[in-house]
C-alpha cells in the first residue's frame, strides 16, 4: 500500500481555537481524500471528504484544504470544542469505478480540546 503520512501525532488546543492536522501522500493516482473521526470505543466515522478537483471544502466548522501539486491536504477545525476531542485519521484512495474503495489511512492524530 502507498503510504499516507499524518502529523502531528497528538494535538492539544484550547476551546475556541483552531485545530490543524496535516497529511501528505505519495500516489498521484489517489482521487478521494476523506477524514475520519474516531471516539473511544467506537469505529471511525466519515467527517468530511474531498476530491482533487477542488482546493477547499467546508462543512460547518470543518474545512479540508487540498494542495495537489504538493500532494498534501489538511483538516482545519474552527472554534474547536471539547466534544471534538477524538482521534482523527486522514485517508486516500484510488476510486476505481465500480470497485470497492480501498482506503490507505494515516497513523492518526489524537486531538484534545481543553475547556
Amino acid at each position, binding site marked *: *500500500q502507498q503510504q*499516507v503520512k*499524518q502529523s502531528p*501525532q497528538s494535538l492539544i488546543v484550547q476551546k475556541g481555537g483552531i485545530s490543524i492536522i496535516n497529511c501528505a501522500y505519495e500516489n498521484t493516482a489517489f482521487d*478521494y481524500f*476523506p477524514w*475520519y473521526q474516531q471516539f473511544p*470505543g*467506537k*469505529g*471511525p*466515522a*466519515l467527517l468530511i*471528504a474531498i476530491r482533487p478537483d477542488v482546493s477547499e471544502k467546508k462543512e460547518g466548522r470543518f474545512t479540508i484544504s487540498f494542495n495537489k501539486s504538493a500532494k498534501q491536504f489538511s483538516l482545519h477545525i474552527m472554534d474547536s470544542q471539547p466534544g471534538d476531542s477524538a482521534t482523527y*485519521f486522514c485517508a486516500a*484512495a484510488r*476510486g*476505481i*469505478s*465500480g*470497485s*470497492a*474503495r*480501498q*482506503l*490507505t*489511512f*494515516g*497513523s*492518526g492524530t489524537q486531538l484534545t480540546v481543553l475547556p
Partner: protein
Amino acid sequence: ETGVTQTPRHLVMGMTNKKSLKCEQHLGHNAMYWYKQSAKKPLELMFVYNFKEQTENNSVPSRFSPECPNSSHLFLHLHTLQPEDSALYLCASSQLAPSAGMAPSTNTGELFFGEGSRLTVL
C-alpha cells in the same frame, strides 16, 4: 448506530484456540472489509469483498481466514494466533465506488465502520 454490527465486542483467546469474528451490515451495501487497528499505527486493510468475491488480500497470514457467505455478512476465522495479533478488528461496508458516467447520486463509496472487536491473544 452505523448499520454495521460486530460481535463479539471483546474476545480473549489462547494461541491454540479457534474463534470467529462476525460482522453484519444492514445498509444494503455490496462491499465489505476487514481492517486491523493497532495502537499508534495506521488502520491496515486485511481483506476486501466485492459482491461476495474476495478482491484483495494484503499479505495477511493464513491464521486469519475470511468468509463472506452473502453481501450482508462477513466473518473472520482465527486460529493459532500470536500475541502480536492482539488489536481492534474493524469491519466496514460500502457501496462500490461510483462508476464513470453514472447519473449523480448520493453514493460516495463511503465506508461505514462497525465498533470493532477487541481481540487479546494470550
